[in-house]
C-alpha cells in the first residue's frame, strides 16, 4: 500500500512538472513560415503593379512586368556544429497572383542556428523531369525533348521600352536542362542559387520575410541589355549564365518574427 501511495505521488509530481513546462512555453520544435516580398530597388511591388507600373532598369529601359513566378526549395537550418536540418520541399512563389507564403509541413527543433539558407530553383538532383504533379499542373515544365526537361526556376515575362522600341516583349526564363545533350545543346551549367540569410534564434513559431529586389536581375554584375537578350533565352547558355550571376544578390533577409 505504501508503495502504491509513493508511486502515485511520483506520478503526480511528474504530471505537474509536465504542466509547468507547458506553462513556460518551452517548445521543443516550432513551425516556420516564409513570406516573400518584392521590390524594385526599394519600391515595393504588389499584384496591382503588374502591367501597370513602369520601372527603369540598369540599362535605362522602362520595364513593366506581366508575370513573375519562381521556385525556392530546400530551406536549410545550420547548427553551430555544422549539422543541417533541411526542409525537403519547394514552393512555387507566384508573385502575379499574390501567392507569396510558404508554410512547410514539418517543424524544426528550437535553438540557435548559425545560418538559414534556401535554394533558388531546384538542385540538380531534384530537378527531375515531370516529377512534381503540382508544378506540372501549373505548366511550369521545361519540355524534355525540345529543351532538356525539368522545371523553370523562374518565369519572368514583361515588356520594355526605350528610344527604339515601345512595349517590346521579354521572357526572362531561368532554367537548367536536366538532359543538356551530348555534346550539350541546352544550358547545363549550374543555375540554381544557394541563398544565405544569416543566423537565427528560433524559440517559437517563426516567420521569415525574404525579399527579392527584382531590379537586381538586370543589374549586378551584368547590366542586362533587353535589346539583345529579350526572348528565346531558355536554350541560350550564355543568357542562363548571366542570369545566374545576376541572381546572386537578388534575395535578402527582411524581418524575422
Amino acid at each position: 500500500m505504501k508503495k502504491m501511495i509513493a508511486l502515485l505521488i511520483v506520478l503526480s509530481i511528474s504530471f505537474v512538472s509536465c504542466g509547468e513546462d507547458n506553462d513556460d512555453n518551452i517548445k521543443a520544435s516550432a513551425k516556420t513560415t516564409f513570406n516573400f516580398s518584392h521590390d524594385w530597388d526599394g519600391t515595393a511591388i504588389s499584384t496591382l503593379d503588374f502591367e501597370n507600373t513602369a520601372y527603369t532598369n540598369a540599362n535605362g529601359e522602362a520595364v513593366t512586368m506581366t508575370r513573375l513566378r519562381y521556385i525556392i526549395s530546400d530551406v536549410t537550418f545550420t547548427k553551430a556544429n555544422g549539422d543541417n536540418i533541411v526542409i525537403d520541399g519547394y514552393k512555387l512563389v507566384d508573385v502575379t497572383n499574390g501567392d507569396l507564403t510558404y508554410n512547410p509541413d514539418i517543424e524544426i527543433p528550437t535553438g540557435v542556428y548559425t545560418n538559414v539558407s534556401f535554394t533558388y530553383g531546384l538542385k540538380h538532383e531534384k530537378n527531375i523531369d515531370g516529377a512534381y504533379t503540382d508544378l506540372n499542373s501549373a505548366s511550369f515544365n521545361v519540355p524534355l525533348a525540345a529543351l532538356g526537361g525539368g522545371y523553370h526556376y523562374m518565369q519572368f515575362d514583361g515588356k520594355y521600352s526605350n528610344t527604339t522600341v515601345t512595349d517590346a516583349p521579354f521572357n526572362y526564363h531561368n532554367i537548367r536542362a536536366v538532359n543538356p545533350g551530348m555534346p550539350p545543346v541546352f544550358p547545363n551549367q549550374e543555375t540554381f542559387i544557394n541563398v544565405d540569410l544569416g543566423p537565427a534564434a528560433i524559440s517559437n513559431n517563426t516567420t521569415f520575410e525574404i525579399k527579392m529586389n527584382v531590379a537586381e536581375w538586370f543589374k549586378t554584375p551584368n547590366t542586362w541589355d533587353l535589346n539583345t537578350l529579350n526572348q528565346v533565352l531558355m536554350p541560350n547558355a550564355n543568357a542562363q549564365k548571366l542570369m545566374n550571376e545576376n541572381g546572386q544578390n537578388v534575395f535578402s533577409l527582411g524581418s524575422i518574427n
Partner: protein
Amino acid sequence: MKNWSLHIICLAAFILTTSCSDEESQLNQGYEPTPLALDIPPLFEQNIIPPVIPSNNPQTVEGVALGKKLFYDPILSGDQTQACASCHAPQNAFTDNTALSDGIDGNFGTRNSMPLFNLAWNYNERFAWDGKELSLERQALEPVQNPVEMHSNWDDVIDRLSTDTEYPELFRKAFNTTTITKELAAKALAQFERTLISSNSKFDNYLLGQATLTPEELNGLDVFMQESRGDCFHCHGNPNNPLWTDNIFHNNGLDATFTDLGLGGVTGDPSDNGKFKSPSIRNLAYTAPYMHDGRFATLEEVINHYSEGLQNSSTIDPLMKKVDEGGVQLSNQDKADLKAFLLTLSDPSFLTNPDFTN
C-alpha cells in the same frame, strides 16, 4: 362545442404534421445516392494533381444520370426546342461547328461555343472564354436564362420539371429530395460534365508506349515545344501536363483594338482587355471553327495567325514571339508538321462514348 372544434383542429394539425414528417423520414431513411468516382486516366493520375470536385456536390451514379438527361433535354429552353447539346454536341467534342451559336429565337451570341472535356481539372474554376463563371455549377445556370441562348427562366423550368412524369423521381434518387430547384439541376449538370474526360488520343497512346508518331508529327511536336520555333507550350502545355492548356487568360494578338474585352469585361481592369482563356488543344479535329469568336475556320488559319498574323496591342501577352514581325515565321513544312502533331491529340473514342452520348 368550441373546445371540441379546437381539439379537432389540433388533431388534424397533428396528423398533417406527422404525415409530412413520415414522408420526409421515408425520403431520408436508409437511402444514399451511389458514389461514383471519376474515371481518371493514367496519364492524368501520374502527372497532375487531382480534379476539383466540390464537397457539396459529390459525384453519384444518380446525379450523373440526371445531369445527362437534363443535358440532352430541350425542356430547359424557353420554347423547348434547344438542349445544352444543341451547342455542345458530342460529335464535335461538345461544341458546335459554327463560329457563333444561335439561340431559340434565331439570335446569335458573340462567342464561339466552348468544347467540354476535362473540366474537373480547371483548377482555378474560372469557366467560359472570359472567366466570368466561377464554378461549373454556376456556369450551368447561365445559358438557360440567357436571352440569346435558351431564353428561358428557371421558375418556368422548375415548374416543367416538377410536373414531368420522370424528373421528380430522378431528382429524388440523385439528391434525396422531392423539391426540385435550379441549384440541384445545375449540380446534376455539373456532375455529368465532370465525367466528360478525353484522354485516348494517338499522342496519349504514344506517351504510353502504345503508338508511334510519324517523322512529320515528331517535327510538329518539336515546333510546338521549341522556344525558338513555335513556343506553343508556355500556354498550351507539354507532355507532362495532359490537359494541354494552362487554363488561364492571355491576349494572343488577335486584334489591335478590342470589340470584345474578354476577361477585362469581367474584372473591369483595362490590363485584362482582350484576354481570353487558353482552350485545350485536344480534339481540334472536331472543334472548328477556332478562337473565342470562331474567326478561324481551319487549323491552317490558326497556325498562320501565330506565324505571321499577330496584331500588337497594349495587353498582348509577352509570350507572343516576334510580334514586330507578325509572329514566329514558320516554314510551310513546319506549319504542315505542326498541324499533323496537333491532330494527334484528337480522341475519336470520346465522340462516341456511350456514357456521354444520348
